[in-house]
Structures are given as C-alpha cells and as structure tokens.
C-alpha cells in the first residue's frame, strides 16, 4: 500500500498508461460473453464471486490482521439467506421449505445485510482473540454452519440444498431462457456475467477507497500495533467489529452470486476447504490490497478449472484406470506446486510483480 501516500498530483504521471490498460481490460471483459462458451463463462463467474469474497477477507485478514478461516460460513449465510428471502414456501423434493418470496433484488440486499449481521454477532468473540487463535476459532463457524445447513432442513433444504430463485432486476430475468443478442444466445451465465462484473467493480472500488483512505490507515495501524493505534485515537474494538461486518457483507454478496451460478445451494460446498482457498487467494495475490484479492482469486479459482479442463493433455498422465497418474491427480500436483511456487518466488503476492516499478516512480518523485 505504498502508493497510498502520494498526493493525487504525485500519482498522476504513472496513471495514464494504467488508464489505457484499464480501458482495454474492461472492454475485453465486456466482450467476452460474445465469444466464450458457458463453461468458461461459469469459470469466470466463479472467479468473480471468489474475488468479491476475497476482497472482503483481505479487508479483514490482510488489512486489519484478523485471521479468518471461517469465511465460507458467511458465504453460506449470503447464499442461503438469498434463497430464503427470495424463495417461495412450499414442497421441494419431499421437503417442506420456508421462504419469504420477496422480490429478488431486495433479497440480495437483505442477504448481504444478514451476512453482515452474522459477522457483527461473531465480532465480540473475534475481538478477544488474536492470530492463530482467532483463525482456528473461526473454523468453529464452519462446523456450526455445516451443522445448521444439514439440520435446519426447512430453511436450508438439508443435504440436497434448495433451488435458487432466479435473479430478476427491473423485470429482466437472469435465467436460462435464451435471449439472442447480436446473434449470440444469452443464457443465465451470459446474463449473470454482467451482473457479476458490476458487483465486482463496485465492491472493488469501494474497498479500494476504504483501504486507501482514513479507515484503511486505521485498520493497518490496528494490525501493526494495536495499543499505538488506540493511543492515536482509533477506537480499536469498534473498528475491528466494523471491519468484521464489512468483510462478512462482501462474503455474503459473493455467496449470493455463487448461489445464482450454481442455481442450487450445495451445503458441502461451504466447507473448510473453501475457507482455506480464500485464505490462499489473498496470500497468493497479496495481503491487504484489492488488486491482490482479485488476482489471487482469479488464480485460485481458475487454475483448477484449467487444469481439469486440459487434464487429458497434461504431461505424463495416464488415462483413468491404467494405474499411472490420473488427470485428476496431475492437476492436484500442479495446483499444490503452484501455491508453493507463487508464494516462494513472489513473496508479497502476485501483485508485487507490478509494485516495484510504481515504488521507483514515487522515489524519483520525492
């Protein structure tokens, strides 16, 4: 977060080339649905959802230093919250399900708020704990979450989850009924793509603003030296709680998006592995920055997909059954190796690739 310190004027010089990159990037992203097939769009959507969640986690863990291994719990709250708020009560394969049948846009908002509230409820506990202790304590959330998901059947649909009501904004449905745009049939993935992109953009910019502004500095201060932060006038407890709420809200939003992609909530999904993957994202991308979260999310969410997709053509894999390394295993190896390697060769995360030159810039300036 070194470049946070330059007055806008100072930052100006190395903004222009970036601006072009941004422009090109966004155009590409907007165009993709016209070229990619559903598989890739879905992969991209998962990545976007992951990115939103990871931004939240990075606010909490990267910037404020509250290690959380329970992020997937808040994703679950978001996902199921949406289903309950938007879904109708009624019979769903042999189960009586409760739903409020609210308009979906409202359900999204409420789901996000609900996740935030969940975070707020946990923050008093979090407030007492530090480091690894907090981390493992948050693990408890996941187990609680799983337990509830499986046992509160009439809300969650139990083990086989429940259908996710189709999102509809201003009468436009994000479902699979095909709309043909520029000779390209738009299914749910294509439509959701833009929704996801929008959510990510807004979420990203917001978090970036927070991190680079006054709250961000306070958060970092809390991470680096709690007592000093207090003495400098930062209400530590309040901030820690606030950040917990905010990050949970991001998780909630990510959860909603994931639910919409899945079209059905799957309890097994919101487990410990997922939580650890989120942690991996922010570490791989870079702790404490939005860019870090996004890059890391893309890496962690897309790599396995790529690997499985091309698993047949991976080096030295044998076809299933013939005893050798199966494609699945091969992709696991590469995934594990990638995590180790990235962190090894890019301490500080993938985003550090660009930062040094930015730094040098600012040096010359001052």
């Amino acid at each position, binding site marked *: *977060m*070194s470049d*946070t*310190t*330059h*007055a*806008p004027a100072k930052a100006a010089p190395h903004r222009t080339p970036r601006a072009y990159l941004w422009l090109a990037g966004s155009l590409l992203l907007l165009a993709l649905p016209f070229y990619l097939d559903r598989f890739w769009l879905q992969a991209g959507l998962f990545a976007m959802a992951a990115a939103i969640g990871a931004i939240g986690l990075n606010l909490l863990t990267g910037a404020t230093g509250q290690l959380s291994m329970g992020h997937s719990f808040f994703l679950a709250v978001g996902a199921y919250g949406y289903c309950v708020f938007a879904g109708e009560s009624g019979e769903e394969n042999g189960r009586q399900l409760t739903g409020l049948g609210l308009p979906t846009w409202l359900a999204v908002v409420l789901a996000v708020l609900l996740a935030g509230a969940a975070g707020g409820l946990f923050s008093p506990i979090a407030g007492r704990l530090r480091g690894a202790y907090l981390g493992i304590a948050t693990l408890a959330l996941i187990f609680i979450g799983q337990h509830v998901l499986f046992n509160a059947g009439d809300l969650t649909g139990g083990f086989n989850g429940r259908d996710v009501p189709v999102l509809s904004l201003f009468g436009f449905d994000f479902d699979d009924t095909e709309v043909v745009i520029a000779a390209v049939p738009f299914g749910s993935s294509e439509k959701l793509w833009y929704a996801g992109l929008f959510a990510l953009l807004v979420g990203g*910019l*917001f*978090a970036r*603003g*927070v991190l*680079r*502004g*006054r*709250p*961000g*500095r*306070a958060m*970092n*201060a809390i*991470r*680096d*030296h709690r*007592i*000093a*932060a*207090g*003495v*400098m*006038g*930062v*209400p*530590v407890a309040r901030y820690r709680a*606030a950040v917990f709420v*905010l990050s949970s809200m991001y998780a909630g939003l990510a959860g909603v998006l994931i639910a919409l992609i899945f079209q059905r909530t799957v309890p097994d999904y919101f487990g410990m592995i997922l939580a650890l993957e989120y942690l991996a994202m922010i570490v791989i991308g870079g702790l404490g920055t939005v860019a870090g979260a996004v890059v890391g999310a893309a890496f962690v969410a897309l790599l396995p997909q790529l690997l499985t997709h091309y698993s047949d053509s991976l080096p030295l894999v044998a076809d299933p059954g013939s005893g050798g390394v199966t494609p699945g295993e091969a992709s696991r190896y590469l995934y594990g190796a990638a995590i180790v390697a990235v962190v090894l060769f890019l301490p500080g995360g993938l985003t550090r690739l660009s930062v040094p030159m930015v730094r040098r810039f*600012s*040096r010359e*300036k*001052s």
Partner: protein
Amino acid sequence: MTDSEKTPGGASGGAAAGHPERTVGHTGEESHPPPPLTVTDVTVRFAGLTALDSVSFTVEPGSVHAVIGPNGAGKSTCFNVLSGVYRATSGSVRLGRTELTGLAPHRVAALGIARTFQNLALPPHATVADSMLLGRHRLTRAGFLATGLRLPSAAREAREHRARVGEIAEFVGLAGDLDRPAGALPYGKQKLVELGRALCMEPTVLLLDEPVAGMTADERRRTAAVVAGVREGLGISIVLVEHDMGVVMRLADAVTVLDFGRRIAGGTPAQVQSDPAVVRAYLGESPQSAETAANEEATP
C-alpha cells in the same frame, strides 16, 4: 506545590526557547491556553509490585513538565496511565475538569492528549507519511462510506491534512523521508517520526517519552529546539520523560522526580538537580551526568 508557583511565561528554562515575552504572548492572548493536567494520588499495581505509589503533580498550562527518575521508577507507567493504556488502581487524572481515569485510549486521544513511545511503536513497513497521517485520525471524519464512495468531502479532507503533515514533517526535519518505510530509517530518525506523529494529533498536551534517546549531541540540541519550538508555537503543555539532564535542564519549567513509583522531589530544574535525594537516587554523587559530563570533558 512548588511547580505551580511559577508561570511558564517567566520560566527560567523557557529562556532556552528564546524570548519570554513572545512565549507569554503565545500562551496568552493569541489563544486560550490548554487546561492544566492534574495527577492526584495515582497508584498502579501489577502482580507483586507497585509501579506508581500515590503520585501527584500538576502540569501547568503551556509549560514543559519533566518527569525523571531511575529506570523502573514508573515514568512510562505514568504515561500509560495518562494516555489510558493502563487503568490506575486508584487515584485520578484530570484535564481541566474532565476526568481521564478509566477512559479508553482513543477517548483520551480525543481530548487532545498525544504521546510518543519509549520503545518505538511504528509499523516498520508503513511509510512515514502514513504513520503521521494516522496521527490525524481524531481530526478527520471520513468513514467507511465516505472513503468507499469517494465522496468529495473525503478527498478534500485528505488533501488538507496531507498538506499539514507536510508542514509538520518539515518542522521536525523529516521532509525528505515521507515516502520511506519507517523501518528503513535509522533509530534516531524513527524517534523523530514518533514525535511528528504525536504532533499530527494537534495535541493540547504532549507526552514525550525519551525523545532524544539515541541521538548525537547536536541532534539532541536540534530536537530540543524542535520541542521548544512546539511549546513556543503552539503554546501546548508538554510532559517530558528524559534521562538526558542537559535536555531536561534546557527545556523544563518544572520537574517531578520519581523513584520506585514514589514522588521523591519536585520543583525547578535547578532545585531538583541540587536535591540530595535526587542525586543519591538518580544523578549519582559525581557532579557529572550525561550532558554536563560533556562540559566537564571540555574543561579538563
């Protein structure tokens, strides 16, 4: 109370800060002086030992009040109580009429009490500018929404306060280092960053814990000048903990001496320095002490 007898204006120690009348002018009309800081019968106990034992003293508005004493006498503990890091076992601290005892650190800070730390408390990777901007926290308002939505108000605020940080950095002599991570600075400079960060809080009372430790003689002189300049320019009260008697002599209007948590002496620097108890407990029989030693060197 001996220390309350003398007004900061006429402070003999104030001479070092230069022209008395100007000092008066400052603490006088130009601005209402900060309220006095009164410490009464403060006791702090930790498992097994009493770090402060019913200590009382008053920091007169706009004066420099030195607290000295042997290692482990309770000076930093005293600061920790003043800044709300420790809660006094008994006794009270008041700023004017407001009671400080039991307030959380950030509430104390909100009242305009700033401090530096004896063992540096700077995030090593954050830049100097960031650390100093943190000092502005209590003076700024932009919250999550404002910064997240990039409201113009937040931007304006940021701009103004960066400017002020620049001024303060200039003043303490860190203008060149604003963009460097604090951890990369030499020890002495880090001390200055702490001072700057505290000044960024625009305090009414400034608590300095060993501000010149780890500096060469003329760096000490410069820092002392900075502190004097602060008092002169802002007319705020300063509580100073320092083992360098030279600096204490030069800056302090009044001195309180602690030993084993008890207040064993108080008064003007001159009175204190000649106080046998102080000499026994702290300065040592030999006439020299850190700084005066130098003069003695000069005249063999």
